[in-house]
């Protein structure tokens, strides 16, 4: 009887414990399962927050870079509106971090019961060689939409994709960009001038979007100068004269879009011309006075 009661208690404890485990939040990787060498394929990063509203994520992802290579990201059908760190690769690890202003609890899909997982990021990879490519989280951070930035406790579920040999069409089209031939969306620049006592310098603000493969980098030039790397926000040093600023948003396939802005200097051309005109008038007047006196 005692033995039976012991089993009963263990069973009861199990019943109380395991359902709580299955209800936990998680972040997971979804793939199509298979791809062929030469294919560009999507990897979806989803979050099931168990109904909790979240508004910020930071993720890093390791992948088999001898089998697949990172080729960009899509903003379409995902929820992250602003990237603090847009998806980029460093030493074989993918990093990304962004926010969802207003927060989200889940995806509302009328064809499904309850809330569906939140599509956080849609990453693009190119299959390079045959094999089973693993994608695994290195670090994940999800913050609740509670005004305090509390951590959401969650599980991580990794993914994988089987890379098969190239199809004949794939070999024929290899090397040709057929995936993204469109420029990023038109965007605008905002100049935020530093106030007298502000610790933040004057900055140029921009936010470009590219539907097909995402923004890979920004470049900036002042007047007719050289293109230099830029990042939002881009600090702008003060200058005596106004300058023409051009920012170029470049996607992962080299397509680009430019946006321009005139940043005012300390001295405007109008003021300079006025001073110059006054000096000429003063000079002429002075010359006449001196001539009259002589």
């Amino acid at each position, binding site marked *: 009887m005692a033995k039976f009661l012991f089993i009963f208690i263990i069973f009861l404890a199990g019943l109380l414990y395991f359902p709580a485990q299955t209800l936990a939040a998680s972040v997971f990787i979804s793939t199509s399962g298979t791809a062929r060498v030469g294919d560009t394929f999507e990897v979806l990063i989803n979050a099931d927050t168990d*109904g909790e509203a979240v508004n910020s994520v930071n993720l890093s992802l390791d992948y088999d870079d001898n089998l697949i290579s990172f080729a960009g990201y899509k903003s379409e059908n995902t929820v992250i509106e602003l990237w603090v760190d847009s998806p980029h690769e460093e030493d074989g690890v993918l990093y990304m971090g962004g926010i*969802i202003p207003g*927060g989200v609890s*889940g995806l*509302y899909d*009328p064809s499904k019961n309850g809330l569906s997982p939140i599509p956080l990021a849609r990453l693009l990879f190119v299959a390079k060689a045959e094999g089973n490519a693993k994608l695994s989280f290195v670090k994940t951070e999800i*913050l609740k*939409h509670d005004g305090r930035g509390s951590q959401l406790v969650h599980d991580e579920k990794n993914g994988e994709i089987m890379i098969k040999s190239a199809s004949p069409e794939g070999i024929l089209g290899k090397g040709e960009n057929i995936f993204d031939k469109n420029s990023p969306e038109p965007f605008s620049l905002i100049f*935020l001038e530093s106030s007298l006592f502000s610790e933040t310098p004057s*900055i140029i603000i921009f936010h470009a979007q590219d539907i097909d493969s995402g923004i890979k980098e920004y470049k900036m030039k002042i007047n007719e100068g050289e293109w230099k790397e830029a990042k939002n926000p881009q600090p702008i040093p003060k200058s005596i004269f106004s300058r023409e600023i051009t920012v170029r948003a470049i996607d992962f396939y080299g397509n680009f879009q430019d946006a321009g802005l005139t940043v005012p200097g300390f001295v405007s051309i109008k003021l300079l011309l006025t001073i110059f005109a006054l000096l000429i008038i003063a000079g002429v007047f002075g010359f006449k006075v001196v001539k009259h006196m002589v």
Partner: protein
Amino acid sequence: MANLHFHKKIIILLLFFFFLGRSALYAQAPPPVEQEVTISAQVESVESVEITPSSSSGSGIGIPKTAVQFSGQAYPGATIFVLKGGVEVLSVLADKLGNFSATLPEQYNSTTVYTLFAQDITGNRSLLINYPLVVYIGFLTHLGGIHFAPTIVTDKIEVRIGDYLTAFGYGAPQKDMEAFISGIEKKTFTLASKADGSYRITIPILDLPKGNYTIYIRYAGDSRISKLVKFVIGEANILSTEGVLNIPGDCNSDSIINLVDFSVLAFWYGKSNPSRCVDTNSDNKIDLIDFSILAFWWTG
């Protein structure tokens, strides 16, 4: 021995019903959201739709072929704004009970983030609520049961010990509400909104220690909260009208949290000794938590 066998039977039976009960409990547990998403009508074409009071405002315009409809309760006379991809696409007025319905035509199969917020009759806004929604061509997708947490304003940003703090705003009419003060200590108060949706609560600041606090309002038992309003318990009374609203991350003090504030925060991301106004949680570093707090306060 026969008696022991009987006990075993009872325990097995209990186990069976216990397991069955728990399974049923988890299977029937409602999803942790208050909204209902349904495809309430399949619309084949504009012409085939009869104009009914429930499907249009009676202006003679039929339901478009594909559409998204939002309905729920805000505040009496409130304006409800619908944003798509962060851009305002529609605004509607709520009735005397705060009920509203907004229908937005759509064109493509997609997952779109719709953002809603309500503005009460005094111009105070609710926080944003996002609905990432899968839209199907040829369907009217209805998202019902939407509700916004009450709006909130306080009369002071600093309260002298022994004095009073008044919080007021709008919610749905005649609802039980809760006011939460949290800081060094926490306190909860109960109140109710009037028939016009307005509420006002005056809280004596007697036994709370000096320091930084926040106050927020919610409907009794609801998970959705109002904006958090910061205030200080100190030596003097400072009215809200005499100072800036002190919204976290609002360095240019325009009471708007948008791309500009995000970019200023991004400038300081990872840098040491950040500017005080961007360090939303005052921990002397700018990390994802500061961005999360900014995202909570976002107005667009």
